[in-house]
């Protein structure tokens, strides 16, 4: 249907544009109004700036790593301390990416902005706690910078004992930073669980929630349940360094493998903290840009929860070669395979959603397609690693590096970018250049594959990870990988440029630029600071039948036919529409 076919006589619903005093970006001015804001949207934006800064820093470190590996004996760092430099760079790359970027990227930055708006609430349940978790993130980041300034960090982001208890770099500063970031993560998760449980407006039943909210809910469960264990582990590690408590350090009768159990009990679920929100984002992106109802809503929703719970049972697969008993090892391998099922379900559901849809190849859709492609590779190569016999060969080689980069970068980063491009008009009220955005998506896709596909081969040929120098037979593949990194970097810069340019030169964004049916598209772009004047009428988040393209104004509008009756659930008397 085109513009002409908007049914006439029906009520066209479009919130129009916000005034400057309504717009959450401009309703109060001055740096302090941002620094002490309790508005979840502003906190989300501050998070966004923070995580992107962290990503930029860690990305530069990644570039250094790859450039160094251009030559077998190391191309960037030279001299007697070259290997130490390399070790510090890869450690900080990993630590910053994991703790400061990937974990807070979608849940904290985009989640903060989106959860209340998608839910139809005015704010998260605990706005002060929300602001404090942002400042905890900042403190955590300061500790990391402090570690960098003091004497660096060379333990790898995993802080394995006894290396971390004997090295003379600033392990205590960095682990304190990670400890603080853990609390930031716990508070965010706790806030979202409470918000989703208690702040839903009338009519927003559990199964009318957008899948992004389901994914956020599952993520929050992991954040609340797993992060405290990381907290105590890091605390014990600090105590081990300061007082030699002898729990992890074999020199004082401790057991280093116990540390690995403790650490991965958090850090494996943390992988799902990183990828689950990405699943939520992609579910929404695919459905909105295919203008078709999501296929198998309940399967996707339940599989998120299943992944969250199963994710707690598989930490042992990081330690297949560490010396666990054979029986334990085999059980962990079996459990590991079970996690792959819910992930596979989602991929099939997304494809089925695209089937016979009305697809617009917008920038977010390009990222979503790239995500499915890359995540499928990342997921399937996980099978090689979950299988015990092949893991004996592939463990701690570049195969593992490639596998988790396909999941973390090809999965989480690409979906983060897709989400950013999808909700950018809503967040800042500006449209970006579609051509530029699609170009960025294509370059990132190609650059990424060029970087990490060769690493699978490197790994199966036996190239161990975390090597500052390597044997000459691996050189060609390393060089291809490095060239890919440069391309990937260019793609990311293009994406950044497109987004920043839109802030200056972008057209004003309509309330609903993509034709989404979830609640955030029912308020203006950018949303007013109070989100919704009154609790919004909640419909099916994936019902696109009432949404039409208005060619004249280049926007989607919701046409509310007269037959539409009151929401299914009778609103509570306290905020019934009649009182207004």
């Amino acid at each position, binding site marked *: 249907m085109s513009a002409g076919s908007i049914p006439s006589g029906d009520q066209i619903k479009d919130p129009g544009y916000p005034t400057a005093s309504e717009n959450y970006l401009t*309703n*109060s001015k*001055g740096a*302090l*109004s941002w620094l*002490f*804001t*309790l*508005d979840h949207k502003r906190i989300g934006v501050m998070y966004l700036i923070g995580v992107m800064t962290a990503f930029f820093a860690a990305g530069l470190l990644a570039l250094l790593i790859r450039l160094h590996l251009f030559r077998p004996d190391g191309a960037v760092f030279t001299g007697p301390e070259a290997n130490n430099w390399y070790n510090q760079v890869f450690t900080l790359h990993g630590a910053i990416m994991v703790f400061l970027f990937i974990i807070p990227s979608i849940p904290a930055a985009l989640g903060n902005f989106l959860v209340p708006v998608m839910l139809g*609430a*005015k*704010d*998260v*349940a*605990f*706005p002060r*706690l929300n602001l404090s978790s942002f400042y905890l993130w900042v403190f955590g980041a300061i500790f990391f910078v402090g570690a960098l300034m003091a004497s660096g960090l060379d333990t790898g982001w995993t802080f394995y004992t006894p290396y971390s208890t004997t090295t003379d770099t600033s392990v205590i500063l960095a682990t304190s930073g990670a400890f603080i970031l853990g609390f930031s993560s*716990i508070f965010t998760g*706790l*806030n979202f*669980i*409470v*918000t989703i*449980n*208690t*702040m839903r407006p009338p009519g927003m039943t559990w199964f009318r929630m957008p899948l992004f909210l389901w994914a956020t809910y599952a993520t929050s469960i992991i954040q*609340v*349940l*797993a*992060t*405290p*264990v990381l*907290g*105590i*582990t890091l*605390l*014990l590690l600090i*105590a081990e360094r300061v*007082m*030699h*408590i*002898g*729990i992890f350090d074999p020199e*004082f*009768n*401790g*057991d280093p493998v*116990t540390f690995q159990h*403790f650490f991965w009990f958090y850090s494996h679920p943390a992988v799902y903290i990183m990828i689950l929100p990405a699943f939520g984002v992609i579910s929404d992106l695919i459905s909105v840009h295919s203008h078709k109802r999501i296929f198998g809503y309940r399967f996707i929703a339940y599989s998120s929860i299943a992944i969250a719970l199963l994710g707690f049972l598989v930490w042992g697969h990081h330690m297949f070669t560490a010396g666990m008993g054979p029986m334990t090892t085999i059980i962990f391998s079996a459990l590991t395979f079970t996690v792959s099922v819910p992930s596979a379900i989602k991929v099939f559901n997304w494809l089925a959603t695209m089937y016979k849809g009305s697809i617009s190849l917008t920038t977010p859709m390009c990222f979503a397609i790239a995500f499915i492609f890359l995540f499928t590779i990342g997921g399937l190569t996980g099978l090689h690693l979950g299988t015990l016999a092949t893991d004996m060969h592939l463990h701690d080689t570049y195969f593992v590096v490639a596998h988790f980069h396909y999941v973390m970068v090809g999965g989480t980063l690409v979906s983060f970018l897709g989400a950013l491009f999808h909700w950018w008009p809503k967040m800042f009220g500006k449209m970006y250049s579609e051509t530029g955005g699609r170009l960025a998506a294509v370059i990132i896709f190609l650059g990424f594959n060029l970087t990490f596909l060769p690493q699978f081969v490197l790994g199966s040929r036996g190239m161990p990870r975390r090597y500052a120098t390597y044997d000459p037979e691996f050189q060609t593949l390393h060089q291809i990988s490095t060239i890919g990194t440069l391309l990937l970097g260019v793609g990311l810069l293009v994406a950044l440029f497109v987004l920043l340019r839109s802030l200056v030169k972008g057209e004003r964004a309509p309330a609903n630029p993509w034709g989404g049916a979830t609640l955030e598209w029912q308020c203006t772009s950018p949303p007013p*600071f*109070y989100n919704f*004047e*009154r609790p919004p009428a909640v419909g099916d988040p994936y019902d696109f039948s009432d949404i039409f393209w208005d060619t004249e104004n280049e926007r989607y509008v919701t046409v509310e036919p007269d037959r539409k009756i009151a929401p299914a659930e009778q609103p509570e008397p*306290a*905020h019934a529409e009649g*009182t*207004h």
Partner: protein
Amino acid sequence: MSTIEAAAENAHDAHGHDHDHPSFLAHHFDTPEQQFDSGKLGIWLFLVTEILFFSGMFCAYAIFRMLRPDVFEGCSQFLNTKLGAINTGVLLFSSLTMAWAVRCSQVKQDRGLVAMLAATLSCAMIFLGVKAIEYSHKWEMGLLPAGLYFYDPANPHPESHTNYLFYICLPFMILLGGVVAWLVVSLATRNKFHVQCAMPLTVAAACFFVGIGLGMVLESGGSEHAADEYQAHATTELEQTAAIQLVSSGESEVLESLATESNTGIQSELSARQRQLENAGTAIVQEGDEIAGAIVSVEENVMTQRKAGVFFSIYYCMTGVHAIHILVGIGFLVWLLVRAVRQDFNPQYFGPVDYVGLYWHLVDLIWIYLFPLLYLIR
């Protein structure tokens, strides 16, 4: 913050929302019930994270107890069951007063609420006082985490030790001095609100030294007879009055009394140590012993850095983190106390008291597990 909130308030007015938002209801909630439920769910989730936080240490305890049962048995002899028991009693009592405080806030008994919160605070302080005695004695003996461990069965009380008890007490003395000064100033200026706040806080701060006294008496005990216990109680009361008197006098006197007290503590420790030494099966290598035998007995001795150190590491980690939770709880209780004096709570809005109450019960509950695990199971 203020600008946003002001703007938010304006908006509500402008958009004519006619919910009557009482002052205690945050703008983003619709009803007090919603606010209370959110808070309640939030605090329960937080308690879950707390349990998981401690569970890491309980796991470490379980693993090492399984690996080295003999070490745990031998070392737990060095923990004074009496002090642990009295602390358990104090915490249980504080849970009662806390629950009572929640009840008071629900039925708008403001005076009762202040009294109950003050009682809870005092119990917390007594707990810390007793803990200070336990810690300082172990530090002096060198019963420390593996890396710092220097306990020597032949010479359990090295001469030139630091007076750890003094350093632990110092911040509390400053605290006590501070609240007393506050009380005096507010009495002088006849500021009723401040007097009402400072009075219970002074009592609570003084209770730390009650705990110190209690700890010393029990530490020096070794008394099986009821008569002795009676005497101990009497001494406690004396201590209590003494501590309160000390409040008004200067800090130097406090110091003096502490010094004499710690001497008796050390003497008693010596006798306790000898008993414990026998239990721990420690054999000092005698001259003329069979040499191979000596090596074996050295191996079997659990009171070595590598073995006992791990027990004391776990002991300090668990009780230390628990003590930090008590300190945090004290902070929250003080905040509640001030708000209670301000009469902030009413039957519609008593959430904060309820939440802190739940937190306090959890801290209590964790101690209920720590006490038998560390002190009793032998």
